[in-house]
């Protein structure tokens, strides 16, 4: 009896979470795709997919932190591009090793992110305006200096690191061996770190707090300056790391291959249940959002649906998802006020 009650409670709780529905969508799509082409549901396919999407997944995690804090960052694609380009230039001219390259990209990212934070915090410029402006400034200056030329022929130590596998699985039936890419490992590491920061540190709770109600957070004694510096500096750091990963993935620095996709990344995070009012969003949701977009693209290709349809289908999913979550949010508010009235009537 009791255990039955408990399990219905668990189900109720699951049904009240946005993540459950995203996960459900992933399962349903997976079943449909597998029914049409069994090549989809293989470890090889998924490991390849996560290698491709690790870069976007890393950016999505950074965007999540900014959205939770009640802000938005549009400039991260420019930050990633600039970090990648500077890293590549230094690497090609002076050599170095994989750690100095990562360090260079990360530091550039942090500096650019902190510039955003200064405008946002000290001059009280709305985050969307600040970051649209700096997106154009960072990217415009880079293109003006480089004329958009592509850097390639990276040293072998760099490319080798990018091709590294964390573990390998021998291919069955004489197929080539495959494994988990180092890019996926970086994504997982960042997920774990951000999860830990958000759930288990004072800093993480502070990010949720300023997103929920900045004024209340300030009065309670949170240091708003340092939290905002952390949020935008961290987004910058993530942008820098993503730039480093992009270099590993492509083996070249192309100034125009990340820029322009800022809203696509934000859409993945939003799909995972984060909203732009701040104070909400989970890392699980964000991962599921990225995975849903990844398997949709991959699944449609496997089902031989023309790539022309991809954007339309992803657009439909996003519209349905945000509408559904707004509708549920509204219903929850109504239900809460009804039950409150009831308890008041009883009392």
């Amino acid at each position: 009896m009791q255990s039955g009650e408990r399990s219905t409670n668990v189900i109720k709780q699951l049904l009240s979470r946005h993540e459950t529905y995203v996960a459900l969508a992933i399962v349903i799509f997976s079943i449909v795709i597998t029914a049409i082409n069994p090549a989809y549901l293989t470890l090889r396919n998924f490991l390849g997919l996560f290698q491709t999407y690790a870069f976007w997944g890393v950016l999505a995690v950074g965007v999540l932190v900014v959205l939770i804090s009640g802000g938005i960052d549009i400039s991260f694609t420019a930050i990633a591009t600039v970090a990648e380009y500077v890293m590549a230039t230094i690497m090609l001219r002076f050599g170095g090793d994989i750690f100095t390259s990562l360090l260079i990209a990360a530091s550039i990212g942090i500096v650019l992110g902190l510039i955003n934070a200064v405008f946002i915090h000290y001059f009280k410029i709305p985050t969307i305006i600040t970051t649209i402006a700096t997106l154009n400034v960072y990217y415009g200056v880079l293109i003006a200096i480089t004329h958009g030329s592509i850097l390639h022929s990276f040293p072998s130590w760099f490319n080798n690191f990018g091709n590294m596998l964390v573990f390998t699985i021998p291919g069955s039936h004489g197929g080539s061996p495959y494994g988990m890419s180092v890019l996926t490992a970086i994504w997982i590491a960042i997920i774990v770190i951000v999860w830990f920061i958000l759930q288990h540190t004072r800093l993480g709770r502070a990010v949720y707090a300023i997103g929920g109600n900045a004024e209340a957070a300030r009065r309670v004694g949170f240091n708003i300056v340092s939290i905002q510096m952390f949020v935008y500096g961290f987004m910058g750091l993530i942008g820098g790391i993503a730039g480093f990963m992009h270099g590993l993935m492509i083996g070249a620095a192309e100034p125009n291959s990340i820029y322009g996709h800022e809203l696509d990344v934000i859409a993945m995070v939003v799909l995972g249940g984060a909203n732009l009012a701040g104070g909400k969003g989970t890392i699980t949701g964000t991962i599921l959002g990225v995975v849903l977009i990844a398997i949709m693209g991959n699944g449609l290709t496997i089902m031989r649906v023309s790539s022309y349809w991809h954007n339309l289908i992803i657009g439909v999913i996003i519209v349905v998802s945000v509408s559904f979550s707004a509708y549920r949010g509204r219903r929850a508010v109504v239900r809460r006020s009804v039950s409150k009235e009831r308890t008041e009537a009883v009392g």
Partner: protein
Amino acid sequence: MKRQSSELVTLGVMLALVFLLMWILSPQRFATLTNLQSMGSQLAVIGLLSLGMMATMITGGIDLSIIAVADLAGIVTAFVLTAHHPASGFMVFIAIVAGLAVAVVVGSLNGLLIAVVGVSPILATLGTMILIQGFNIVITGGGLISGFPSAILFIGNGNLWIFPMAFVIFLGFAALLHLLMRYTVFGFNVYMMGSNPTASRFSGVDNTRVLITTYALSSLYAGLAGMIMISQYNSAQAGYGSNFLLLTILAAVLGGTSATGGFGTVPGLFFALLILQSLSSGLTIIGFSGFITISIWGIVILAVFVLNFILSKIGDRRRKRTDPPPYLGGGELRNDETSA
């Protein structure tokens, strides 16, 4: 009112300075009729898009779907035109009406999602943006539609005496929006809703209707921009003008539109557009690349905000206010919820 007129003066001074600077930098080529004409016709597309963006920003929202809608309207018009070869004058008219009608339908859909379903404007229009972009690719098969009658080409490239037709269209619709916002009940309601949606609801304003109308209006202006775009490119395609999206937000903000709603005027936006167009045109003449121009736009916006902030700080000190100003940063997007 006082805030708005002083803002216009500031923008006017800025415009005069930028214009003079560009004139001095290239005396032979900047203030020529040809250059001014080309500035005017370039300004039309981003101008119409910014007008639509501004209208939604005044309600406290945003419309990210405008570029996708502009492309869609252009594609629909192009389909009707190329389906009826050779297109008569009447067919041209029908084609334009069809394109604009589709735009208004999408805009109303945005409005419904925001006002009725309760999705925040940035998410609703982000969704429809990706959806419509996808739809555009599907219906065009990723290709280009071209071969338009001369009447269509005239819209974007012709001259009315010395004035570029595109600029005249922009000016006409800017004036129309100005009248709508300034002298009608609808305009009054838009401002009131943008500054305080709860107050406007309790004073009898139908917020739902105001929102749906505003987003339909924004899409209509995007559709008009789409007409000029297909005329100037002499073709329709998914993906035209995608660089304009974020720039329209910057233009609106430079013109005094608040990111949290309630403020923004057509004259302010008009001055802002002239400033930005003079900057990019002047810099291109000197030989700067388009990208450095865009980054200078970014710097100008940041500089204006920083300057405003410092001036207001000085003003505060002069008034010897003792209590510190409340913390305001970090939550400006909260207003997105107000539509719920």
